[in-house]
């Protein structure tokens, strides 16, 4: 695969604008090249802001989800490009899978490669995977797979394709809530400040409405990170996680954290609504 070097993490505002202006007339094949950001040095203060916002302990250890945040601008750069077959605005993050091969710290210089794979039909449209691979001095230390859905006419056989709730997702844990997360109205803006993701659906009710949401919605990867943080430091070391996103968390709101824990496997979920229950995500962590 051809890798194109990126000198520094691109700024997401202009990329989102470019993607929005060039969303018409997309199609064809996935790009054959990937993007590479070499020897990235983590900004400690930005990391601390991220750790505090997601409720990880502030320090030198990179949270399970942090390399995703570092690689996300490359994902957007790849997808914003006119040659990418799916239009970026309205793309829905359906699943995210992460494998941490070893504990990472701010001392590590990260080589991050992002490429797209497996464009495939889905009952509600088309799916694509964005793969993020992180190496330190040639050693594979972290990998992530983000699955996005472009809603639209589907080429998939409605009967045979994967269910919308996510194939392989564990059952939502039952029982009383392990915790209540109060998600404030300004979360989207605060997460944008630490992650660089200025997607308008997270920023404000007004900008979210233009994209068809009643209010701004929490960033899925914040919700996933917050859920992992609630499970303690075990996900810092070698571990793997999968998260299946369902209904978005509207801002502000109070959501219940549900946990089913066993020695090497934890399942956690976020739900809300007293009368009509809304499932936001279900997450599985193996350690």
């Amino acid at each position: 695969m051809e890798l194109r070097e990126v000198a520094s993490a691109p700024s997401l505002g202009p990329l989102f604008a470019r993607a929005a202006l060039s969303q018409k007339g997309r199609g064809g094949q996935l790009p054959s090249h990937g993007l590479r950001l070499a020897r990235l040095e983590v900004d400690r203060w930005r990391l601390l802001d991220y750790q505090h916002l997601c409720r990880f302990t502030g320090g030198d250890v990179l949270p399970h989800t942090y390399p995703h945040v570092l690689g996300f601008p490359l994902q957007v750069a790849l997808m914003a490009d006119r040659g990418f077959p799916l239009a970026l605005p309205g793309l829905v993050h359906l699943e995210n899978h992460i494998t941490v091969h070893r504990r990472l710290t701010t001392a590590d210089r990260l080589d991050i490669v992002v490429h797209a794979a497996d464009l495939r039909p889905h009952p509600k449209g088309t799916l694509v995977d964005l793969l993020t691979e992180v190496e330190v001095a040639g050693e594979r230390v972290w990998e992530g797979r983000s699955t996005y859905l472009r809603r639209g006419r589907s080429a998939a056989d409605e009967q045979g394709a994967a269910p919308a709730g996510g194939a392989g997702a564990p059952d939502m844990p039952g029982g009383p809530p392990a915790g209540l997360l109060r998600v404030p109205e300004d979360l989207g803006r605060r997460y944008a400040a630490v992650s660089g993701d200025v997607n308008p659906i997270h920023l404000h009710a007004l900008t979210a409405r233009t994209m068809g949401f009643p209010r701004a919605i929490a960033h899925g990867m914040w919700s996933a990170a917050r859920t992992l943080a609630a499970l303690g430091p075990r996900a810092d070391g070698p571990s793997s996680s999968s998260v299946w996103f369902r209904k978005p968390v509207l801002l502000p709101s109070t959501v219940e954290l549900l946990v089913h824990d066993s020695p090497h496997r934890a399942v956690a979920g976020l739900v809300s609504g007293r009368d009509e229950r809304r499932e936001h995500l279900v997450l599985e962590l193996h350690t």
Partner: protein
Amino acid sequence: MATTAPRRAAVIGGNRIPFARANGAYAKASNQDMLTAALEGLVARHGLAGEHVGEVAAGAVLKHSRDFNLTRESVLGSSLAATTPAYDVQQACGTGLEAAVLVANKIALGQVESGIAGGTDTASDAPIAVHEGLRQALLSLNRAKTPAQRLKAVSRLRPGQLVPEVPRNVEPRTGLSMGEHMAQTAAQWGVTREAQDELAVESHRNLAAAYDRGFFDDLVTPYLGLTRDQNLRPDSSVDKLSKLKPVFGRGDDATMTAANSTPLTDGASVVLLGSDEWAAERGLPVLAHVVDAQTAAVDYVTGHEGLLMAPAYALPHLLERQGMKLQDFDLVEIHEAFAATVLCTLAAWESESFCRDRLGLDAPVGALDRSRLSVNGSSLAAGHPFAATGGRIVASLAKALHEKGSGARGLISICAAGGQGVMAILEAA
């Protein structure tokens, strides 16, 4: 009823993060972040991941109200078993040492087999409170039941109340800063500028040498880019320090500068304590044992005694109980709140009238061989994140005594706000 004869608690090890100058490398780190980092380093070094520890006692002097359960929250964020109980301790700058004494006493009584004591403080991520007028108005509003009461509460709001209350390093009862108090005591004892600067230079030189010989390799875990204390200046010299302007005291006689006073600092430290059996079961070597401890307090409010002189009063009790003389200690650690604190304390012990009139002793405590004093540097060089200083000193003194050999004894003296002092004796295992 089963009873356990007191035994001596063992100091097994310690860990701290390098101390940072306020608004320096740890400007964005919280007390909980730093205490957790110190704990995690200790856990990693002693193989305690997933282990249940008898209890963790630690604290912070400058504390946010949301940190009401700071130590327990830090334990839950660490790799220690979630079944490890914890509680917060607060005795100003004596916090860390007092926490170690509390844990050691529980071990001595057989109430726990192991424990961790420590402290953390940040002068950067300080709690800022709302103006007292605004606070009172908001509380009235909260109590109000009728629209008229609410209106009355709201009518008490004033624009000037938007100015927040920032914590200040002053004694609530005197309104004087700790430095001003110390300057008065220093003038009273005639402590010279040169003597203070020499002590400060010695502290930097000793701390730098200890780092250079690897003394802190198993006592310090790097954090947020620091591997050594940010305040450390190995090339400090009396000549350089003599050029600084005094910051505390008045007139031409002022002697206290930014260099011979400790700066505001951020950091955290913890110490691992346990019974000998607990340590042996885990194959952990014992560095030292906690022999005794004593606290004291003085009446500084009326000016009867200097704010930071309480440790001078604690010592005779320890010496009498242990049948020791000051000169019997192989190593002595006197926390350098200010260089003048150390010098005034030493001068007081040498003074026949002070020892007779204030301490009620027949003969003066006498002079201390300065080559035994803070041999690996102290707060002037390392900095002084209030509650973290006790843990720093206990761990490094235990290790230094262990290097000297079994039976070596060391004394720790820490002065604290409110006219208090905490002392402890360690003995090499």
